[in-house]
Every structure is written in structure tokens, then in C-alpha cells.
């Protein structure tokens, strides 16, 4: 069986000794195995289903950059940018407001929460996360930084504006929002730790995550990606706290993206593990 590239017509693979009874699915399997379904670094040549001659296919993915670098850059930006607006650095608001401070306590609280969130992310990137892939395409850093830095500036502009209007329901609303925010931050961190513990240092094995003694991880019973669930929760909390429409929009966009990722992750869990718990939804319990 000879397999050609559909666009370029070049010979991709020659499978010899294929049974006449073989189905296309089996041929596809043979092909992907020989062609390289992401050949892992750990694969042993002898164990691969190739004949006496092995042909490996090389695909250049273009300029790459490490995940750690991208994460650090995209998270350090919002941390720094928000503070520029918080301290009302010149040329943002009118000159009479330069380096003044807001009289609303919620504005100070919001700065603490926002900064805490990004410091947490930076520390997790450095000490907690274990990445399956070392790198991603270089263009991603420009796309991601535009997204994070742009939204951070947009939010920060309004929250720290001299004409900022505090939440309608006052201290009650802020307290509730803060509670949601803190719970979700703790939850998100717990999930990150649980996922890290699933995988021994330096390995790339994948296992089904299960709830641990930590109550925050019990969300695993209902959801495949509770880290995303908690993340959306944090931002909803922040939106309620600041009562700022740009924050709500940022939460919505983030939720959309994380739902796409969660669905992908959920699907690959289902594909990889026969005994995957059936009750779990990707990101929202029972719903999504």
C-alpha cells in the first residue's frame, strides 16, 4: 500500500505485507504508527511497527519558544501594567490626577486581588506546572501577550479612573465577590497541585485525576478541568467586585477559550482511558 500526500503527491509511506482483508482503519493505524503520531522521545526503535528499514518523517514546526518563557512574559505584563494605572502614572488620566490615590476602598482591594492573581500564576509557572510539551510556535507569544496585556490595560483604566463608580450594593457586594474570588483562587491552586502530583518529576505520563483529601479537589467528581472552572469563578468574582463591564467581557472571552480547551482535554481523556468516570463534564458541572 502506497500512501501519498494529498496536496503535493509526494510519497509519504510504503506499507508492505498488508493483508487484503485489512480495513482502512487498520491501514490508517499502521500508517500513523509509522508516520509518527507524535513519536515520543522515549520510544524505542525496536518496539515501533516498522520493517527492517525504518523511515522517520520530519516536520519542521517553525520557530518555537518555550512554554515557560511565554507564560512568564504574558503574566508579568498584566501585573506591571495594572500597577501603572493604579498609581495613576502621568499621561493616562488628566495631569491633576497624577500619582493620586482613589478614595474608594474597593479600588485598593481590586489592585491587591489582581496582583495576587498574577503573582500566583508566575510562581505556579516557575514551581508547580509540569509541561507535556517544551515549546510552542513563536507567533503565540505576540498573540497571547496582546490578549493579556491589552485586556489588563483596558480593565485597569476604568477601575483606577478618577470617575470610577463603586459597586451598586456597596460593601455587601464587595464582600461576596471577595469570598468567591478567594475560594476560586484556592481551588485553582489546589487543582494545579493535584495535577502536579499525578505526574512524577521529569516524566510525561498521563493519568486520570481524582479527588484527594483537599475539599477543593472534590470538583474532579463533576468536571474534567476544575482548574478552568475555578479560574472562570475567580474572574466572575473580580467582575462582581469591581462592577466593571470590561472585566465581565474578559471573563466571557476567557470562559469561551477555556471551554474549548476543556472540551479538547475531556475528549482526549475519554479516548485514552476506557474507565473514565461518566458523570464528569468538561468545565461546568452537569452542563458544559
Amino acid at each position, binding site marked *: 500500500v502506497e*500512501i501519498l*500526500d*494529498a*496536496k503535493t*503527491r509526494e510519497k*509519504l509511506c510504503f506499507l508492505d505485507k498488508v493483508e487484503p482483508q485489512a480495513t*482502512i482503519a487498520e*491501514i*490508517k493505524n499502521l*500508517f*500513523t504508527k509509522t*508516520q*509518527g*503520531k*507524535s*513519536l515520543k522521545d522515549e520510544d524505542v526503535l525496536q518496539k515501533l511497527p516498522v520493517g527492517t528499514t525504518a523511515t*522517520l*518523517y*520530519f*516536520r*519542521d*514546526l517553525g*520557530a*518555537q519558544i*518555550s512554554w515557560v518563557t511565554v507564560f512568564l512574559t504574558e503574566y508579568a505584563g498584566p501585573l506591571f501594567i495594572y500597577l501603572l494605572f493604579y498609581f495613576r502614572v502621568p499621561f493616562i488620566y488628566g495631569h491633576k490626577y497624577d500619582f493620586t490615590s482613589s478614595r474608594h476602598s474597593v479600588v485598593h482591594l481590586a489592585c491587591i486581588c489582581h496582583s495576587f492573581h498574577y503573582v500566583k500564576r508566575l510562581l505556579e509557572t516557575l514551581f508547580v506546572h509540569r509541561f507535556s*510539551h*517544551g*515549546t510552542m510556535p513563536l507567533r503565540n507569544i505576540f498573540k497571547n501577550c496582546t490578549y493579556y496585556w491589552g485586556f489588563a490595560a483596558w480593565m485597569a483604566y*476604568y*477601575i483606577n*479612573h478618577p*470617575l*470610577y*463608580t463603586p459597586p*451598586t450594593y456597596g460593601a455587601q457586594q464587595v464582600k461576596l465577590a471577595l469570598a468567591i474570588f478567594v475560594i476560586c483562587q484556592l481551588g485553582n491552586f489546589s487543582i494545579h497541585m493535584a495535577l502536579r502530583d499525578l505526574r512524577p518529576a521529569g516524566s510525561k505520563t498521563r493519568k486520570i485525576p481524582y479527588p484527594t483529601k483537599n475539599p477543593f479537589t472534590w470538583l474532579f467528581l463533576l468536571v474534567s478541568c476544575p482548574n478552568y472552572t475555578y479560574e472562570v469563578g475567580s474572574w466572575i468574582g473580580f467582575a462582581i467586585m*469591581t*462592577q*466593571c*463591564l*470590561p472585566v465581565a467581557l474578559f471573563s466571557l472571552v476567557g470562559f469561551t477559550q477555556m471551554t474549548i480547551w476543556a472540551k479538547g482535554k475531556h475528549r482526549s481523556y475519554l479516548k485514552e482511558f476506557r474507565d473514565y468516570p461518566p458523570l464528569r463534564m468538561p468545565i461546568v458541572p452537569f452542563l458544559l
Partner: protein
Amino acid sequence: MGLRWENRTTCLHPPRKRFPKGRAGQGHVQSRCSRWLVLAIAMVRFYMEKGTHRGLYKSIQKTLKFFQTFALLEIVHCLIGIVPTSVLVTGVQVSSRIFMVWLVTHSIKPVQNEESVVLFLVSWTVTEITRYSFYTFSLLDHLPYFIKWARYNFFIILYPVGVAGELLTIYAALPYVKKTGMFSIRLPNKYNVSFDYYYFLLITMASYIPLFPQLYFHMLRQRRKVLHGEVIVEKDD
């Protein structure tokens, strides 16, 4: 440089050109063409009767708005594959048309009698009639060379003319928008957000600078391929 070993999918035949198949595809394409013909005829009649472009927009506006909003269906058609155009390209075109019709000419009345409005209306009409005649004839497998020629040559004039019409119209609208502060939200307000339609229009005008050359050169490349030999698997328009 990071390297990763990738997966590919297999199929027995080379990918076929996606093209409107069956009655749904034909019907859609023909109706789109005739809608624009209706518009063209209405415009010509008006001009012949009145001898001026003033009031032209007003007379055709209902039809135009109806058709352009209907154009949202276009995106759905691309999604489900009746029309062989990419969703992104069509999405951009439809949004920009809806923007012009509803957010500029409809909402900013002083602008309706500008000559620039006629410029883009004529450009849109001729472009669409040519394009959908091309699709219709292609579907029927009887494509007169003239239609193909028209489709890949008219745009050379029509694109810049249409863009000029749109930009001049937006530019004419600016003073009115600034004076009235329409579609804008100011601080302070309960939701801590603001929006300035005037600056939004300026940014929109600026966005033509990167977008228009891309579209134009894409069409020029298509033209070179289609009219000067090579057979290509057409996916984008």
C-alpha cells in the same frame, strides 16, 4: 528550534473542490444574483427619473438593508459548505457591509446624499452580480469566458472604487458624530465602561490600511492563477 513529530490524516482521493451542489446551492446562488439585479435596476431607474443621486439612498434603503442583513445567511452557507468561500473572508465582508449600511448610512442621515454613497453602492452591486453570475454559470457547467473574465478583472477597478466610497462616507460622517456624541457612552456610569463612536470610526478607517491591500493582492494572485493557466484547488475567494 523545537522539533515535534506530527500526525497526518489519510484519504484515498485528493481533496475535491468544495462547490455548491444540488438545488440548494443553485437556488441560493441564483437568488443572491437576482437580489442584486433588483437593486441595480432600482438604482438605474431612479437616476433616469430624477437625474440626481440625491434621495437615491432613501429610495433604495429598505431593499438594501433587507438584502444586506439577509447576507448574514452567507456566513451560514459558508459554514455548511454550500458556497466555496472561507468563513473568515465572507465574515469580514458581510460585517463590513452591515456596518456601512446600518451603523453609517442608516444612522447618520446627513451622509445619505453624499456622492460617495453612490460610489460604494454601484461598486457593491456590480461586484455581486458578477460574482454570483460566475457561481451560477459554474454550477450549470456552462461558464462563458466573459463572465470569468469579468469576475477576475472588474474587481481591479471596483475594489478601490468601493473602498474609496466607503472611506469618504465615513469621513463625511465624522463631524456629525463628534457633534452629537451618538452611540457613545461617557464616564461616570454604573458599569464603568466608556465608548467613543468617533474614535471607533477613526480606527475603522485606519484598519482599511492593512486589510484592503491583503484582499486586493489576494484577488490579484487568484486572477493570475485562474486566467493565466494553472489549475488550482480553489478554497478561498
